[in-house]
């Protein structure tokens, strides 16, 4: 996961009249990682994806894909990407095979690619069925097959688990993991399904009201088994000052009248206890919190009661 970032965006914004759909988003997606773009409905996920694919022009900001831009080299950039946006779509009067054959012709890949993706997505049984007669889950598989047909280096997928049954979700999750681990394919996937992102993503960007509110290294989170340390103290202002100035922590929030939450990855419970006691703060409780993504997401997006 080194070298040129797969996606680099700076100050990305999109407004539709008075509506600010995406606000000043910075993104860095490393090559070979799975990046989950998590947000509620209407948070700005799909608009961001549309901007990455050149379907929508940013109101401000710049996007670079593998070091190049759509303005400089549209064909070169898009030929490295496989994607689908929002709902699964295909020509309903054409069969699965014909739909994929069209994509093959337009991306200039050999005819055998059609059979390969049909096998990869387990669509053999439906290969000669018209797309209009497919279930939602199989339409989603067809969309994934279409995205994969040109062996892309970057997959940009908008809600890839939509319409899939639980077995299908696990199967697609395993496929994406395999593509990332074995072939170095970068996956940028949006989702509003916490479980899906939690199980698959290496890093998670949480977007809310058009803004990227936090990026979490989920591998790190999983490795540590916790996200935050909660502290109950008698003097919250003094305690916060010590943590910021003496220990240099930055991700500190007040989660109650006497409770601080420290989310810095480098925070150590023993060091916190020592510093607070030495600083004359009475420590009532110090607890590493095993916060899962769901709680974290709800807290960040204002959903926690």
């Amino acid at each position, binding site marked *: 996961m080194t070298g040129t970032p797969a996606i680099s965006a700076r100050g990305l914004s999109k407004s539709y009249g008075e509506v600010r759909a995406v606000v000043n988003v910075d993104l860095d997606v490393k090559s070979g990682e799975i990046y989950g773009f998590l947000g509620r409905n209407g948070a700005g996920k799909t608009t961001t994806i549309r901007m990455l694919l050149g*379907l929508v022009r940013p109101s401000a900001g710049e996007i670079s894909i593998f070091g190049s831009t759509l303005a400089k080299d549209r064909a070169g950039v*898009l*030929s490295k990407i496989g994607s689908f946006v*929002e709902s699964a779509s295909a020509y309903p009067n054409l069969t699965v095979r014909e739909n994929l054959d*069209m994509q093959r012709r*337009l991306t*200039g890949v050999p005819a055998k690619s059609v059979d390969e993706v049909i096998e990869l997505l387990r669509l053999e049984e439906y290969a000669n069925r018209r797309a209009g007669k497919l279930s939602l889950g199989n339409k989603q598989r067809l969309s994934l097959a279409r995205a994969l047909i040109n062996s892309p280096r970057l997959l940009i997928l908008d809600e890839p688990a939509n319409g899939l049954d639980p077995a299908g979700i696990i199967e697609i999750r395993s496929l994406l993991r395999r593509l990332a681990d074995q072939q170095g394919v970068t996956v940028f996937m949006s989702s509003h399904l916490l479980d899906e992102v939690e199980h698959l993503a290496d890093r998670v960007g949480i977007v809310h009201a058009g803004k990227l509110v936090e990026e979490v290294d989920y591998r790190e989170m999983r490795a540590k088994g916790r996200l935050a340390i909660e502290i109950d103290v008698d003097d919250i202002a003094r305690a916060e000052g010590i943590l910021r100035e003496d220990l240099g922590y930055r991700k500190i929030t007040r989660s109650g009248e006497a409770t601080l939450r420290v989310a810095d990855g480098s925070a150590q419970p023993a060091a916190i206890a020592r510093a607070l006691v030495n600083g004359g703060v009475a420590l009532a409780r110090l607890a590493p919190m095993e916060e899962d993504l769901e709680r974290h997401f709800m807290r960040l997006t204002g959903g926690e009661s």
Partner: protein
Amino acid sequence: MIFPRVVATELIKLRRSKVTWVTFAVYTVIVAIAGAFLWMVKNPEVAKSIGLIGQKAQFAFGGQPVDWSSFMAYIAVMGGVGGLIMCSVIVSYVFGREYVEGTAKNLLCLPTPRSHFVFAKIIVSALWFVLLNLWMIAVSYAVGTILGLDGLTSAVFLTATGQLLRLALMSLCCSLLVAWIAVESRGYFAPLGFSIGTMALASIFGRTGWAPWVPWSIVGLASGVAGPDTGLSAGSYIVIGLTFLLGTALVIRHEVFADNKQ
């Protein structure tokens, strides 16, 4: 070369489409109705016995001799005026379906130049419409033969074919504005509504003396619906050409530059 591949994919999309075959069926029925009218004119006692339809049949052929020449002239008028509507249906479908079926976003983020899709769709629409007109000629031949019409010459057929293809080209030029409405509105209803509106405009301008300068009226005049003296000049053909350029430019502007919010 990617462009021939884009054209090939557009043809594949049409091959399996019911709409393609429905348009051929509609043209077959139109010619069959013309043939039925002609049969009534040839058999006035039957026409009289069925009342209104018989009178309309008499009116349609305006007392002309019933032969290949009058039949093919009638077909050319029907192909010209009806062709404007049919051509609008074709381009509305070819351009609008990508938005109705949700596939425009898939096409627009391919490495293929977006203008390729626009030109491929124009070519495929033209091909479809030309084949439809040739089919109309073929069906007319079959119907005329069944009716036992007199005066069959190759000149009659060549004139009618040339006239229908000329009208088809003019209709296609006018219909690019319909294609633009289809991609802007992302569907079929607005372009077809626009098309019906242009028919009304053509009819209104046809009575005001402005007809040779209004694209849709020009096609009507060229079809001979107002008589053999069309009153068309080079200026009328320039208007048709400008309409084509404007429609093409608007479709390309939308497909290349507009945000896709499908």
